[in-house]
């Protein structure tokens, strides 16, 4: 029985960390703000729960487990809203998203600074 637990938590953790790294790299390399928001969104809303589930599987049944569940719910509730709110605030803040990669770079410099 424990072996199965070990394996599933290992898979969860691996998947979580892989997504984390891809998100981080995405955050750096994406040319425009809104694509970066997408990359950051991925890590926050998907990698975090995966990692936390992996953690939960490793812990024995106790108060701590409930607390991790609480954190999971809280993160699930706040992160997507935060990312959405940030994207909206930036849009209002006057940053135009980079519409199409190919034409606009040939023409004037991308609308946003």
């Amino acid at each position: 029985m424990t072996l199965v637990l070990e394996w599933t938590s290992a898979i969860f953790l691996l998947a979580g960390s892989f997504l984390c790294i891809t998100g981080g790299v995405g955050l750096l390399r994406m040319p425009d703000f809104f694509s970066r928001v997408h990359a950051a969104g991925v890590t926050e809303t998907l990698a975090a729960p995966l990692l936390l589930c992996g953690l939960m599987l490793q812990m024995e049944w106790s108060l701590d487990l409930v607390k991790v569940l609480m954190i999971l719910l809280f993160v699930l509730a706040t992160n997507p809203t935060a990312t959405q709110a940030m994207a909206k605030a930036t849009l209002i803040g006057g940053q135009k998203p980079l519409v199409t990669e190919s034409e606009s770079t040939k023409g004037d410099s991308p609308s946003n600074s």
Partner: protein
Amino acid sequence: MLIAIAAIRMRDLFGVVILFGVYSLLTAVLFMDLDAVDVAFTEAAVGAGVTTVLLLSSLRLTRRWEAPPRHNPFFSLLVVGVTGAALVYATLDAPLLGDPSAPVHKHVAPHYLQEAAGEVGMPNIVTAVLASYRGYDTFGETLVVFTAGLAVLLLLGFGESGESRIETSAIHDQVVLKVVVKLLIPLILLYALYVQFHGDFGAGGGFQAGVIFATGFILYDMVFGVENARAVMPAAWLPRLAALGVLIYGGVGVYSMLAGKPFLDYSALSADPVHGQHLGVLLVELGVGITVFSIVLSIFYALSGRRRQS
């Protein structure tokens, strides 16, 4: 460390504030690693949370960009170098990190570790020492918070002067955010109460609880606008609430004095001393929580209420 360097070099004040928030967060993680749970808790709640919010709200009122430094940095580098040398000179003889033979662990601390459970009957020794052994320090600390709140009130008033400005702000029409925040705030306030009364067993206590409680209100204020926040918690109440908190703390001390014991001796509170300690610590933490909550919120009201005059 490199965050500190970035903070020095960066001229965009907004960036500095963000980096300062990250810096105090990393300090909190470092404290966790050094087995200082309560301190990490406070540093995260107070250092990263409140300071960033206050800095941002005051930055909003003043200019954001910083003029380039004019006079040459030579003199200040000299002074810094001298003090740095004195510091490094001091550390040469200091006991190594974590070695048990250091005098710190031999003299006063062992008593706390052994007797605290017996005399004060609380697993969390830090709260035991904070509230009863060195209760007077915490009383002084509550007064420091009270003085700071008073000073800010004296300086800024409550910003009632702000006429109800119609804010066409990006946040107010974000429906998604409003719904989620409406869901979250009861949870935050509940968590604050948990931290307040959980101080004896795990990390927690009056200060952290007061700050979290205030953060809940600040969040409400930021998302739903100043008017509704003031409707919920009118500004005039806050100084009275803070004064009440300090009086609770002082009252416990005076009560133990009247009962013939020295000031702030909780064993006077009830027949069996250990139970008295429990009761005393609980009351004292409550007093601290109320004071910190009302002061942090009144500082936020004072800073956020003001319009940009200049």
